[in-house]
Each structure stands twice: as C-alpha cells, then as structure tokens.
C-alpha cells in the first residue's frame, strides 16, 4: 500500500510549486491560482492524516471536516479576491504585481 509519506511528499510538492509560482509570476490572477494550489496541497495532507490516524476501520472525520472547511473558506476567498482584482484592474488598469508597489511609500 501507499505509505502516508508519499501523500505528504505530494502535498509538499504541490505546496512548493504553488509558493514558487507566487514568487515567479507577476500576473496576479495566476498568483491567485497558485494560492489555491497551496490550499489544495494542505487538503491532501489533511485527508491523508485523517486516514493515517484512523482507528478501528474508520478515518478521523474531524480532519476531513477541517479540510471541507478549508475548501469552503477558499471559495469565499476566491469570490472576494477576484472581486478585488476586478476593482484593482478598474483602478490601475493592470493586474501585474510588479506595478502594485505603492505599499513601499
């Protein structure tokens, strides 16, 4: 059978790719997608742990529900985040993160 470690490695891989994407890409939409990737990576870990920690033939459903909540919050976050991007684009006519550096001042 597949050991827990392999699920965790997959999770770490997705997380790292997502992080790298956030750093490398400047299109803020893609950055946002990478963010979703990282959340999904966390979900994989959670579900794998729920199985690994299961006893007497049942997984730990509390962990799966946590994962469900992550998904739900991610949905809400995407809705807000995309609306923000739209508003931002209207205001600045760009979605490039390099152009959004007014935090500096």
């Amino acid at each position: 059978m597949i050991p827990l470690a392999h699920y965790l490695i997959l999770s770490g891989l997705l997380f790292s790719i997502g992080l790298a994407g956030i750093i490398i890409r400047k299109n803020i939409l893609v950055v946002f997608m990478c963010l979703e990737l990282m959340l999904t990576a966390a979900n994989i870990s959670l579900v794998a742990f729920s199985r690994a920690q299961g006893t007497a033939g049942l997984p730990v459903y509390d962990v799966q529900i946590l994962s469900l909540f992550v998904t739900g919050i991610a949905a809400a976050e995407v809705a807000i985040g995309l609306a923000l991007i739209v508003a931002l684009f209207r205001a600045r006519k760009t979605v490039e993160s390099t152009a959004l550096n007014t935090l500096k001042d």
Partner: protein
Amino acid sequence: MMQNLPWLFLLLPLLAAALDWVLFSKCSKTAATLSILSAAATLALCVAYLAGLNTGAPDVYTWMPVAEERLSLHLGLLTDPLAMRMMLVVTGIGLLVHIFSLGYMKGDTSNLSRYFAGLSIFMFSMSCIVLADNLAMTFIGWEMVGFSSYLLIGHWYHKASAADAAKKAFITNRVGDFGFLIGILLTLGVFGSMNFADMAGKAAGIPAALLTATVLCLFCGAVGKSAQFPLHVWLPDAMEGPTPVSALIHAATMVAAGVYMLVRLQIAMGHAAFTDTACAVIASVGAITAALAALIATQQDDIKRVLAYSTLSQLGYMVMAVGLLAGEAAMFHLYTHAWFKALLFLGAGAVIVCCHHEQNIWKMGGLAKRMPLTVLCFLMGTCALIAIPGFSGFFSKEAILDAALEHCPVFFWVGAGVAALTTFYMTRLCLVAFCGSARAHGAEQAHEAGASMLLPLLILAVMAIISGYGFIADALVPYAGFEAHGFAVGLPFYVSLGSLGLGLVAALLVYGCGKRSSDPLAGNALSAALRERLYIDEFYDKVLIGGVQAIIAHIIEFIDAAIIRGLCVQGSAWLTSRFGLLLSKLQGGSLRAYTFLSGLGLLVLIILLAFNF
C-alpha cells in the same frame, strides 16, 4: 540624644537653606527671617558651649563604610575649644552679616531668597569645616564653601563681571583643591588615618621628605582657599559679590579656613610634622603674599578692592605665622582680623549703599560730615587694622611679629614693612573717602545708614577695640589654652610704632586732608604696574589661559571633533542610516519579494521544528 546637639550647627543652616530655596523662593522676607533665626540659634548654641555646656562626644556617623576600616568615610564633630571658639567667630559675624544684609539688600531687585539661602548654605559649609573631626569631612566642607562662595559672588549673575568673578574664584580654588586632595590622600597613606585624633605622635616615625610633601600638598588647599600667592587672583575679583558677602566669606571666615585648617593640622600632627622645608615654604608664601598685596593696595581706587588686598595681606601674615610654627599667634590674628575686617567691609558696604553704589574712593569725599557714625565705626576698624596700640589688631600683630623675630628676623622686617604699607593705604583710603568735600553727586547726597546696618557696625566696632585684650581674648581666641601674653616694650614694639608712624606721616604728606581730586602718585610706571596688579592676572590670562590652556584646548578639540563627533557620533549615525537604507531595500513594495521572504521564513521554521535544532 543630648550628645548630638552639635549636629544642629550643621542641620539648622542646611534646613534654613533648603526651606529658603524650595518653599520660600518667592517670599524673601520669610526666607531672610529663617536664615537669621538659624544663624541666631547656632550662635546661641555656640555661646552655650563656650559657657561650659558639655554634652559629651557627638556620635560619629559612618557615611561610606568600606571593608577596610581606615578607608571608611566618617562624619564626626569636634567640640574642642579650637572648634567652638572658631564657631563663635563664624556664627557671630555670620549673624551680624545676616542682619546687615537686610539693610544692604533693601531695594535690590534680585531674588533675595536665593541670597539668604546662599548665606545659610555658607554657614552650613563653614561649620562643616570648623567642626570636622577628619580631613575628608573638612574637604567636603571645603568644596561646599567654594560652592556657596560661587553662588554668592555670582549673585548678580546678569552682570558679566560678577559671573566671571564667580567662575574665576571657583576655578582658581580647584587648582588649590587638587593639591589639597592629594595631600589628604597622602595623609591617609602616611598617617594611616584621616582623623585628626589619630594623627597625634605619628610624625616622628615618618621620613622628612614624605612629611614635607604631605604638608605642602595640604598647604596647596590653604593657598587656594586663603588666596595666597600665586593663587591670590580670585579674591580681589570676588568683590563683585554683595558687600556683606565679602565681609563674611571673603574677609572674616572662609578665607581664614585655610589658616584654620593648617593650625588644626599643626595641633593634630604635632610641630614635628611641619619640617623646616615645609615651614620655610609656608612662611615665604605668606610673607610674599603679605608684601605684594600691601603694595598693590596702595594704588587701588575701589574701596572694596583696597580692603580685599588688605585681607590678602593680613592672611599672608597669618600664613607666615603658621609657617613660623606660631599657630597661636596666627589664630589670634585670625580672630581679631575677623572682627575688624568684617567691620571694615560692612562699613564700606554702608558707605557704598549710602553713596548710591559708588565704590571709587575718588568719587566720595567729605563723608565724615554726612555719616559720622558709620565713618567712626570704619575708623575704629582702620585703627585695629593698622595696629594702633590699644586696638585689637595691635595685640595680634605684635604676637606675630614677636614670633617672627624669634624664629627668623627676615620675616620680622617684612612684617614691619607690610605694617607700614598697611598704615599708608588705610590712611589714604580714609583721607580720600571721608575728608575734604564731596567729589561726586552720590557722595553729596550720602546720609547715615539705617539701623539694621548701624547695629552690626557698632557691635563689630566694640569687638574691634576690645577683642584683643587678655580678659576677652583668653576666653575667645580659637586656640586651646590661649593666653594673651602681656607685650613687652622691646624691639617689636618700637618697630611697629615706627612703621605706624612712617605710614601715617607718608599718607598725610601725600594726600593731605583729602583736598586732592586725583591720586598724586599715579602716572608713573610703578603706579601703573600696581594698578594692574603687577600684571599677575594678565600673565595668567596670556600664558596659562592663552598658551597652555589653548594647546590643551586644541588637543581636546581634536579629540572632540575627530574621535567623538566624527567617529562616534557621525560615524554611528552614518552606519545606522546605511544599515537602515539596506533594510529599507527589503521593503520594496514588491509582492513577490515579500512572498519569497515569507517562504524563506517558512523554510527556516520547518528546519527548526522538524530537525529539532
């Protein structure tokens, strides 16, 4: 409890000063009353002690305990005759000066609470010197009188000359105090104790060179405080302070502290500690001061400066007596001089006030008619100072001349010469200021001084006459077992009479009956030199301040500019700003950079947690 009564000598003035300063800084009348009350209370206490009150040895308070006992700082009081009779001079003249100040400072716009607080601080510090049972405490009082003297000289600090004079007095005293401090430490090392009681009889086993060094270092303190040559320059300038202050601090008590300290040491260490070399130096310095000051006094026009140089010259007498191992005579002269010089200064103060703050004797004249009582008192003081037989100064000066003749005739003849000069300049002062007719508007309007000024003058005049006689001197001269020896009609008597006559006749010949309007001796090189104080002050200004000090100042300026400002201050500022700029690069506003850094942080976190570093 009772044995601690002497501590009141210190506590009362200190309390008065603190209250004056803190609570009554806006209420000068209350402040003055408090100060006068504290002075009166200490005087009463002093009289009680002299009348036979004996409360036993006061407790010794260990101020700074050190494991090695002899290094601990103790504060203890002496109540022996030397201390208590000296206290009588201090508190007695102190009280009179306090009262006189009421009249003198009337109408003065400066802060009188500050003035009286200064006087009380001075009373506290002077008592600290007089009553101290060890050199450390003496030194504390020593610095404190310097401080109060600074405060009072600079009382009219908005006047540049007063502020400068205060600084000059303070800094000049620093020079002497430096030596004094070394002397105290040497004493601690050589005698093993700073306590006067523990020094007795130890001088015999100590090498003469070491003793000489110790005594001369301690003498440095006296040179500064008692304004001996070459540190005498501050005293004439100190006359910028209010005249009562000059009377109390710069004539009667503080400047005599050096003499008091030397005599105290002479008694504590024994005459053996004062080696021949040390004595020769001390006596020579005293004699030089006496002669120089008397010479300069003959050509001064400012009434207070004449008196200041006269004080210098008389202090020179006392120091000379100490150097001749005649502590008894020194203290006798200190005691009589305190009364009559305080009288002269207060008299001068009254004259100055009544002439609308005119100090130049050539702008006075004819005052004898307008303020006879004041002038009479002043004349009594003059008679005592120029040692007319029957006045107090005569007896004490005679004692010093006797001692000088006994030990070393050179000093005797110097003393006699100084006596003639003293007579000359005092007669000149009296003739010019009091006789003839008024030469200025202020003098024309002069009138008799008020009661608060006359009363102290009268009391002091009485003391100036009688304090030298045996019946009163035996009880009051600050020296244990003092006995006024009846003077013999011998060489000293004739010589002093001769010098008196010489001075009188010369002054009368030169200045007549005060008809002249300018000094007939002025105009030649000698007179100019004397008026310029023999160029000693100028020499200090040019060579010490302009030369040596300037070089040191350049070095310090270099250290200040290059190392402290350049390296430490601006360097660190530069480093900080550079570092800040470097860090601000991190906040580039770039989203990706932030993410990268947080990813880096995540990595560090994982490594720390997972690998349990």
